[in-house]
């Protein structure tokens, strides 16, 4: 077996171990907690090793070689009329990078869960679910066609639902689970329509056959679709982007993600920050050749315009909400929406490498932040309200320092954090292509830095503002270990993507990674990496300025004079009614409740009370009543006419006659019988004599 065959085999096998772990735990190991987590982590570690082996091997080949000869295997799966849908794996540079960060974050979070879920009554079940989830994410990553991708996409949706509602005793948890499931379902259905439409047009769903084939793309771009003014490519792109809007929680389908924080924190970290929501962005990065086809003739294709608008809006919108939240996990949830929106906006302006780069760095630092918040929650005895924390830096040093690193990466603190490099690349593209997007995203960056600093100050600095925070303790090594590992990535991963013409550091990047490694490697996903925009000091200094200004303001407001116990947030005073609106998330939940939920419930009520109970049950009950009456009539006829008159009547008649005879003849006296014997003897003798005996 040569290396290529080995890689193909390993790629096929990557999603399998977690699935086996899921099956084993569900079927056999449910009772044994240590065995369950050992199996889950062991399986994940196996997938991790295979994924890393594949990744490092293809890194050795280089992006363009991998583009020319991707790792691809497929077998016929669903034979239809004249073509068979195929099932297979496909590894190109984008897949390789995704495998890299997904396997690392998943493994870190699996290990962390041992500490976080300790003592939970459904401990084994938790590991079964996250194993199934890991199958979904790894499978989605290596899928070579849209249908398989969609199947794994839905498996993740199911796991997300199960894990958000993991503590289903809490009404808020199961409501959040249903909300997440239904909200993402809207996007998924639209996406499925898009996939089906694409299939009707091309007869295939394979990435290889569609995205890497100029002729097919061109054909799709010039064929008008059922929607006037849109080409097929644009229509399909918009429909598939709807799936991303649902999965990656972009406005207007963002409402489920903050509520999803009801789930256990490792779930928030893995599903709702690092992997599943990233899968939405991964999908649009993957489909970028289709979304952007025809770009050379116009300023932006319809799907790209939609992505730019929705992404830019969501980025700023979610960041403003995050400013006014007090729940440590909700702040992170809104920041996740905001950061995913950066990626979507980046795709909207054509910066797909920057989007992929931010996807990876964000996965690292956001997983780190969520795990850090989980550590805080465990350490301070399940307190989630930042207003009741404070002073945890001294009590939880490892958590503090790693959280600080994650927070700085999220803010885009210059040079030393990964978040800076990826965010800077997005902003640089925005500056070059679309100033409006740039200014909006820069404002978003300012807000991001501000709320991150606010969060760090409220949680870790000052004096404890509650009994729980006062008695907080550092968490065990199974939780801090993954934090440290992710913190290293959050710091240093950015160096693989230093722009080559960046002052001073560009040379360092050239020395270490032969230039902008990430740009060249991932850029090769669509053949030759596009030329990066030239280095421009204006957007860099603006983004650095925004980040530092946000951090400074956050420090001035919350860090210099830490809040005392019972003191209200100074923002409440300064912003007044605006703060109320922000705290209530622009009342969008209420709006949706009024516009969608209430009418649905009303409709269900009408359907139940009038149509079901009134109409359908009325007809059924009427029929039942009718047959009941018929039955009563039949019974009467049967009892009195048939039984009484005919059957029983004739039997009774025979009986009566027999009884009369018996009483007359059967006396029981031997002599009476003898008399009849004598009588008949004489009769027969007489007859004999008369008719036979007379003849001599």
């Amino acid at each position, binding site marked *: 077996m040569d290396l290529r065959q080995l890689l193909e085999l390993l790629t096929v096998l990557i999603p399998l171990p977690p699935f086996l772990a899921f099956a084993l735990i569900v079927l056999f190991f449910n009772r044994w907690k240590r065995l369950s987590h050992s199996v889950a982590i062991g399986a994940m570690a196996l997938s991790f090793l295979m994924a890393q082996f594949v990744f490092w091997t293809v890194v050795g080949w280089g992006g363009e070689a991998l583009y020319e000869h991707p790792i691809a295997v497929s077998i016929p799966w669903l034979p239809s009329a004249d073509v068979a849908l195929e099932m297979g794996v496909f590894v190109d540079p984008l897949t390789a990078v995704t495998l890299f960060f997904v396997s690392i974050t998943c493994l870190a979070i699996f290990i962390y869960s041992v500490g976080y879920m300790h003592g939970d009554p459904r401990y084994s079940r938790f590991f079964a679910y996250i194993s199934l989830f890991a199958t979904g994410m790894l499978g989605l990553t290596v899928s070579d066609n849209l249908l398989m991708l969609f199947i794994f996409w839905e498996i993740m949706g199911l796991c997300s639902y199960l894990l958000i509602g993991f503590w289903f005793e809490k009404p808020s948890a199961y409501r959040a689970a249903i909300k997440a499931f239904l909200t993402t379902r809207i996007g998924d259905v639209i996406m499925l329509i898009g996939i089906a439409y694409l299939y009707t047009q091309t007869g295939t769903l394979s990435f290889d056959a569609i995205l890497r084939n100029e002729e097919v793309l061109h054909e799709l771009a010039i064929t008008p679709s059922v929607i006037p003014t849109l080409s097929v490519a644009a229509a399909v792109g918009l429909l598939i982007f709807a799936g991303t809007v649902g999965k990656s929680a972009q406005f207007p389908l963002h409402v489920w993600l903050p509520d999803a924080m009801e789930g256990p924190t490792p779930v928030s970290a893995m599903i709702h920050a690092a992997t599943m929501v990233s899968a939405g962005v991964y999908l649009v990065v993957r489909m970028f050749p289709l979304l952007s086809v025809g770009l050379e003739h116009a300023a932006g294709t319809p799907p790209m315009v939609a992505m730019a608008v929705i992404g830019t809006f969501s980025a700023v919108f979610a960041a403003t909400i995050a400013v006014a939240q007090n729940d440590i996990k909700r702040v992170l949830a809104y920041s996740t929406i905001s950061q995913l929106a950066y990626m979507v906006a980046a795709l909207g302006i054509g910066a797909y490498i920057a989007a992929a780069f931010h996807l990876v760095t964000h996965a690292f630092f956001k997983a780190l932040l969520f795990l850090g918040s989980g550590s805080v929650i465990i350490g301070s005895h399940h307190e989630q309200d930042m207003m009741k924390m404070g002073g945890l830096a001294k009590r939880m040093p490892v958590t503090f320092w790693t959280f600080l690193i994650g927070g700085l990466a999220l803010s885009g603190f210059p040079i030393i954090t990964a978040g800076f490099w990826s965010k800077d690349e997005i902003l640089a593209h925005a500056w070059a292509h679309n100033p409006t997007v740039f200014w909006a995203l820069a404002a978003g960056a300012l807000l991001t830095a501000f709320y991150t600093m606010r969060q760090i100050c409220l949680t870790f600095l000052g004096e404890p503002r509650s009994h729980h925070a006062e008695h907080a303790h550092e968490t065990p090594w199974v939780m801090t270990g993954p934090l440290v590992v992710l913190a290293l990535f959050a710091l240093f991963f950015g160096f693989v993507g230093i722009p080559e013409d960046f002052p001073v550091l560009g040379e360092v990047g050239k020395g270490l990674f032969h230039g902008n490694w990430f740009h060249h490697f991932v850029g090769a996903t669509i053949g030759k990496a596009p030329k990066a925009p030239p280095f421009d000091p204006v957007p860099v200094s603006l983004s650095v300025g925004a980040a530092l200004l946000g951090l400074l303001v956050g420090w001035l407001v919350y860090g210099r004079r830490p809040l005392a116990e019972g003191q209200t947030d100074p923002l409440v005073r300064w912003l007044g009614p605006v703060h109320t609106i922000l705290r209530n998330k622009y009342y969008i939940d209420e709006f949706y409740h009024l516009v969608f939920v209430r009418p649905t419930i009303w409709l269900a009520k009408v359907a139940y009370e009038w149509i079901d109970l009134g109409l359908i049950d009325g007809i059924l009950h009427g029929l039942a009543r009718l047959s009941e009456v018929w039955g009563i009539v039949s019974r009467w006829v049967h009892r009195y006419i048939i039984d009484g008159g005919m059957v029983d009547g004739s039997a009774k008649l025979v009986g009566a006659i027999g009884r009369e005879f*018996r009483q007359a003849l059967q006396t*029981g*006296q031997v002599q009476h019988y003898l008399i009849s014997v004598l009588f008949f003897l004489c009769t027969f003798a007489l007859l004999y004599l008369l008719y036979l005996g007379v003849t001599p």
Partner: protein
Amino acid sequence: MMIPLSWYLILAAALFCIGTYGVLARRNAIAILMGVELMLNAVILNLLAFWRYGEPTTAVGQAFAAFVYAVAAAEVAVGLALVVVIYRSRRTTDMDQITLLKW
């Protein structure tokens, strides 16, 4: 001069009728048994008469008669035993009150 056969036969028939009447009309079980005996004796008389007028040289008629006596004696013994048993259980030998032979 011999008494003609028909005289014997008439006597036997008369005896048989008397016996039959006794069996059918008497109420007392003992009397009924006595009627049965009369009927048997009528039959024996017939038998002997036919033997005397048919085959007087061989003694088969007398031998037959002797068998019938023996059987009749046994029969009476069984009959009387039955009557005694019935009397013990029902305190009567009146046939009107013994109505067991019915459904």
